[in-house]
């Protein structure tokens, strides 16, 4: 049963410990988590609990000090460096600070993600408007980032992360800079993307959102998994 679940896992942390040389305490300690295809998972915990390290390990921006990280059935420690870009093409990323290019408009920002992986212009012309519509930015393709609200900028970032139809979407506090009302809109977009079969892993502080959505919750504290609960809430369940 456990084995089957791991086989189906799109992200699998197998006893992962990550220690940074400059820190005494490891950022992650003996983490075992399996995330299945199509799941929506909240990664919660206070700052410094290891949420970002978890996401960076999935992207192979960091290597585990111990244990193995498997993504899409592949052990990342066996993935050669030149194949890392191909891994990242299958993973979309969204951040708290949006990370848009200020000198490019909405369309160009989204198209950038495809241009730099060498997709043909015709393909870009077709899929970019579709994704812009999907995230709810119809008619705003030619706006510059500074003409958009925070919520809209985050939608652009989500569109850019999703435009190449990744298998996994990682979101690191995507609602951290956005007011609660707008956050609901962002969550709806992430939910919509999740419904297309994309696995979504969202690191967050936002208790209200976690409580409202009732998805699987993995709680980290000092680098350890202290709770893994399906249909969980932010705080400790009683």
């Amino acid at each position, binding site marked *: 049963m456990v084995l089957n679940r791991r086989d189906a896992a799109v992200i699998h942390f197998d006893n992962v410990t990550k220690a940074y040389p400059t820190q005494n305490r490891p950022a992650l300690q003996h983490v075992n988590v399996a995330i299945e295809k199509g799941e929506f998972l909240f990664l919660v915990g206070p700052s410094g609990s290891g949420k970002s390290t978890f996401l960076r390990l999935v992207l192979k921006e960091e290597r585990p000090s111990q244990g193995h990280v498997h993504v899409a059935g592949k052990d990342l420690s066996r993935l050669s460096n030149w194949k890392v870009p191909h891994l990242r093409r299958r993973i979309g990323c969204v951040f708290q600070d949006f990370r848009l290019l200020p000198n490019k408009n909405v369309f160009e920002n989204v198209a950038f993600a495809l241009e*730099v992986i060498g997709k043909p212009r015709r393909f870009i012309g077709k899929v970019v408007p579709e994704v812009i519509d999907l995230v709810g930015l119809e008619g705003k393709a030619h706006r510059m980032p500074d003409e958009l609200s925070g919520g809209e900028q985050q939608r652009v970032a989500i569109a850019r992360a999703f435009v190449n139809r990744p298998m996994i979407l990682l979101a690191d506090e995507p609602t951290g800079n956005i007011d609660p009302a707008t956050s609901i809109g962002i969550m709806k977009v992430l939910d919509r993307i999740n419904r297309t079969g994309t696995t979504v892993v969202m690191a967050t502080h936002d208790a209200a959102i976690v409580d409202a959505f009732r998805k699987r919750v993995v709680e980290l504290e000092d680098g350890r998994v202290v709770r893994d609960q399906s249909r969980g809430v932010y705080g400790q369940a009683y």
Partner: protein
Amino acid sequence: MRAQFVFQEIWIGLRRNLTMTISLVITVAIAMALFGTGLLIRSQVDSSKSYWYDRIEVSVFLCAKTSSTPSCSRRDVTDQQKQVIEGQLKKLPQVAGVEYENKEQAFKRFKERFSGSPGFVESTQQGDIPDSYRIKLKNPEQYEEVAKVARSLGGVDQVINEREILKRFFNILNGLQGAALLIALIQVIAAVLLVGNTVRLSAFNRRRETGIMRLVGASNTYIQMPFILEGAIAGLIGGLFASVLLIFSKKLLIDRLAGNVEMVSQLGWSTVVYVIIVSICFGVLLCAAASFLTLRRYLRI
């Protein structure tokens, strides 16, 4: 698509760092011009060396009334002495051939050789150059033994090895070449450091773009290419300026030198074109390689 995108990025990069790019272009231009000048001088030296060394002779000047050498005692060489000298020289194993040259022939040859400097020729009269035996050596290195024998013979005024005279001239050229290459080397170091700084600035200016490129899975080549091409294009522009400078240095330096000392084998334009191509390629490769190496430090992949 790809190409257009890459070139757009390069253009943005070069424009953002305009002052750095300009200083890089200037440095590369000077470095490559000096490097090319060094090559030009070298090929000039090589071609004239082989021309001259083929014709090189040891001249045994004979005594004349006008000579101030004590052993001549202000007397012309006698026919008997001449015969002894010729006989002795011809017997030497190092000697390939001996030719007599009288004052008229010597003056004629002098006029030919220095036809490039008419003032010098005018100040010289027939008879100023004494009779001589011109000795062709089997091996120009064996000059000393022949000279020793010739000096010991009566009626001999001076023994002059043309090779020694030429050597001095070639030494000057070699010195020029060395100086040009040395300054070129210093400039090359400056260029490499400048490329490093330009790339670092460029990488810093474009950290958002490269960060996103990394994140969405752009390949390393794709991320690095704009930076490397930026360096290469700066190198190319520098190389083009250098080639203009090289054409000047051929016209002003080499041709003038050759005019003064009748170099016979003048440096052809084909050599200049060859040197220009080598310099441009060197400049482009240098900048591209320097970009590539600095990228590894400043651009996380």
